[in-house]
């Protein structure tokens, strides 16, 4: 009889890394999404061009290659990253590129009359964006952001390829040590699903909170 509890704790150690990657990667992705999403809507052609280049490059190339590049190639340029840093960088930049299009689309979905009210009230472009447009657009972005975060969670497994001991990496260790496939992979299957559900429900709760008052129902 194998003692599974030791192997389970190994997988749970990996789960901590997966959660770290997901949280930090999502934070970077969120920042990149707003920088690039707003950049694409900028008045300045240079900014628009830069944002478009970023988005198209990271959507158009594989996350594997991006990760290997960050971990194996950047050191030749004098930038040495730990596996975790490389993982967060690649995941954040990759998912940020997709989410940037979400930001852009949501901002474009806000009606022109809101901008006109801003002008009539003499708000600056920045004030209008920050106080009026983005807060309303955020509600439109949220559900898709939830999708993006789940995509990112699932993509974290690629970091096992640069020897970062995430959940998938640990499951493989357990498999090679015990020869059992059902236990390690059923465990991480359930864990990935549980994490995804946490993201789904958090986003839903956030959405409900933000939509409060917008539909005319008393909070």
């Amino acid at each position, binding site marked *: 009889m194998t003692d599974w509890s030791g192997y389970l704790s190994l997988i749970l150690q990996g789960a901590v890394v997966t959660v770290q990657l997901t949280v930090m990667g999502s934070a970077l992705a969120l920042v990149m999404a707003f920088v690039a999403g707003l950049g694409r809507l900028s008045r300045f052609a240079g900014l628009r061009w830069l944002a478009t280049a970023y988005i198209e490059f990271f959507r158009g190339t594989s996350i594997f290659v991006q990760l290997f590049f960050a971990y194996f190639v950047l050191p030749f340029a004098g930038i040495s990253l730990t596996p975790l840093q490389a993982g967060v960088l690649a995941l954040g930049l990759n998912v940020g590129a997709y989410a940037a299009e979400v930001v852009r689309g949501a901002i474009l979905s806000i009606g022109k009359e809101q901008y*006109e*009210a801003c002008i*009539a*009230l*003499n708000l*600056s472009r920045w004030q209008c964006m920050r106080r009026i447009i983005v*807060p309303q657009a955020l509600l439109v972005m949220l559900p898709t952001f939830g999708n993006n975060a789940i995509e990112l969670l699932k993509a974290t497994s690629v970091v096992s390829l640069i020897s970062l001991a995430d959940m998938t990496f640990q499951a493989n260790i357990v498999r090679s040590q015990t020869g059992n496939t059902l236990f390690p992979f059923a465990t991480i299957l359930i864990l990935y699903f549980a994490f995804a559900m946490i993201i789904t429900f958090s986003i839903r709760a956030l959405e409900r909170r933000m939509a409060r008052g*917008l*539909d005319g129902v*008393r909070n």
Partner: protein
Amino acid sequence: MTEPIIKIDAISKSFGNFQVLDGLSMQVMPREKLALIGPSGSGKTTILRILMTLERIDAGHIAIEGEQLYHMPKNGGLVAADERHLTKMRQKIGMVFQLFNLFPHMSVIDNVTLAPMLTKGVARAAAEKRAMELLDMVGMSEKAKAMPAQLSGGQKQRVAIARALALQPKIMLFDEVTSALDPELVEEVLNVLWKLCAETDMTMLLVTHEMGFAHDFADRVLFFDRGKIVEEGKPDEMFSNPKQERTQTFLRKIIAAGHRV
């Protein structure tokens, strides 16, 4: 002799191939209440939108209190106004829209206090005090904490008026402010306009299809058609004895459509 507060000089405006305004000139005196009437597409709303800098002009000049709106002096000549100049000029002008354009994610009072706090640096306490006075004036102080979605159209429009007033503009533009309202809600908004008329010395430009109100409210009525002022005059002359055939036809149609004159 007082100077006009608004001086529009030969402005033109096209949307694509459609020329909305063609060399239009007009003047408005301080404190004057002006009603702009005419068929849709006649350019009356465009004039308000141009004054609010929501549309740019293709040609001509506009002066507000003697200062150019779309131009600014530079090296002895006039150049196109930059954003800073427009920001300065916009302080003189406020606008209320047909569809209210309230900020749906903010409470009534936040809608009213936002612009004074952001654009004039008014402290929150002072902005809220002033906002409550304005909401009181438009009969909306009880709904200060409500969200716009909880209000009727007439209530929304009264909040929108309070919001525009909070910046203390000298000129107020009202763009068909009752057109989107159910008939029974029109009066509460018109009553607010009456109050403004009696209690403030703002210059008011009103685009409207409420001919009865235009008649009672305005010092002068301008009838627009195809981007030109076809006829203008005192409300009594305009409504009871229009001289131009196009004015007569328009008023006949409006009355046939059930609008009171």
